[in-house]
């Protein structure tokens, strides 16, 4: 007569030992806030939203979304909120919470299955298509960095805002990185990466080419696939039709 097996407590204990430990982890995520004004959103609101989505189809797709109810005094009916969440979901917006809600709105939101979120700091949304022309216009006199000592193996010299000029040799194992062009008045034996922020018109110039790697806007060639004719020559490196070209000078 085996009582132990039938004892529910015993079984529970057994089950508990076989269960894997529960894992809880902190998680930060970025959400977007959608501001709703006035009462329940009307057709004009959805039309505006659709318009925005048409302009930028991938903008905010599947983004976790918070409804900002600060200006939506009229939105206190849980059914209206439920309707709004459904309509947003149809546009692939995943609304999960509300912020700046009044007590009445909070009650309605809770009933509609939305959670209250404490209002965070607003950050500007990253534009999907950064306008490069505009950013270069904003910094017309890009800071050129001039280095007059040899760049040694293991050193990295970065010109984050403009051109990089090195007067002296660049050893193998050294790295030059510039937003703009790179000029080396000496032998370049290390790596040179020009246009590191995506400037396709950046160039690399050096008096004697013996580089490990040359890159412009992320397109690169290593010493292995550089033509022998340019070895130890005075050259310029530039992009043409997405191809990295190395050309002798003078």
């Amino acid at each position: 007569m085996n009582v132990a097996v039938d004892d529910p407590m015993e079984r529970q204990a057994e089950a508990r030992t076989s269960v894997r430990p529960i894992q809880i982890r902190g998680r930060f995520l970025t959400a977007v806030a959608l501001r709703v004004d006035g009462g329940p959103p009307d057709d004009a609101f959805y039309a505006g939203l659709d318009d925005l989505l048409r302009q930028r189809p991938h903008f905010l797709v599947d983004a976790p979304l918070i409804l900002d109810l600060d200006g939506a005094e009229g939105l206190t009916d849980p059914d209206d909120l439920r309707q709004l969440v459904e309509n947003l979901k149809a546009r692939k917006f995943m609304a999960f919470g509300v912020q700046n809600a009044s007590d009445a709105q909070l009650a309605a939101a809770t009933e509609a299955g939305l959670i209250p979120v404490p209002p965070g700091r607003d950050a500007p949304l990253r534009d999907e298509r950064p306008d490069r022309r505009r950013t270069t216009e904003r910094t017309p006199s890009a800071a050129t960095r001039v280095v007059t000592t040899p760049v040694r193996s293991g050193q990295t010299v970065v010109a984050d805002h403009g051109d990089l000029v090195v007067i002296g040799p660049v050893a193998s194992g050294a790295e030059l990185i510039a937003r703009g062009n790179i000029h080396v008045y000496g032998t370049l034996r290390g790596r040179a990466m020009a246009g590191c922020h995506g400037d396709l018109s950046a160039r690399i110039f050096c008096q004697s080419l013996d580089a490990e790697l040359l890159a412009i806007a992320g397109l690169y060639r290593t010493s292995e696939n550089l033509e022998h004719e340019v070895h130890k020559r005075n050259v310029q490196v530039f992009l043409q039709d997405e191809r990295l070209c190395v050309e002798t000078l003078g």
Partner: protein
Amino acid sequence: MTSQLKQDTPAKGKIIVITSGKGGVGKTTSAAAISAGLAMLGHKTVVIDFDVGLRNLDMIMGCERRVVFDFINVIQGDARLKQALIKDKRLENLSILPTSQTRDKDALTKEGVEKVLNELREEFDYIICDSPAGIERGAHLAMYFADEAVVVTNPEVSSVRDSDRVLGLLSSKTARAERPGAEPIKAQVLLTRYDANRIAKGEMMTVEDVLEILAVPLLGIVPESTAVLRASNEGVPVTMDEPSPASAAYMDAVARLTGEEVEMRVESDKRPGLLQRLFGMTA
């Protein structure tokens, strides 16, 4: 009054680090040869072993049986500097500060090293720091307080690249580099294990190639020589040993280090001996 006294005291001792990055290029041999050479020229010289845990300098200097206290004992306050310094029996101007064989590089502290060096500066004209290989703590602290650096390099690519890395550290990660307005460390290359025959065959880099890459002045060229190995095995610095092309090259380098202008010459290191010539003919 005290400031007056301070001004009257002559320039304090010069700290010279012997470093390379790569191991086995001849740092310790060069440190021993250079410090003995300086002492022979009448300068009060001390040579410090920074290679904690892999103590070698004392053997090359032939004083390994006389080590009682070491550099680490002094840094940790277990012994006074005077107790740890070993006076060379052959040269009265030469002292050795050996390191610990049982500890590791973590036993070195920046404050401790500085204190010891400052104390040595008062007494000696030249303080030669024999750096360990690598670029970690031991090597870093050996170069940190230096006024001058001798970068020991072999004429081959890996050694040259490591030397270049070290030159970069000398100009960025040292006290002189960090202090605004201070004159940078004066670094010079000492080319060792130079073998003219192998260079002629293209197996080694030429002096020009090495200097072109490193872009620092040349302190000297030490030919590959059996005298070097024999001297280290016997515990005699090369410069104290019987004359050889290597010892002559080191003495030239020492003279240049003290500011003399000596013409660069490379003795044809291996004049084939009689036996060799005979064998060479039959082969």
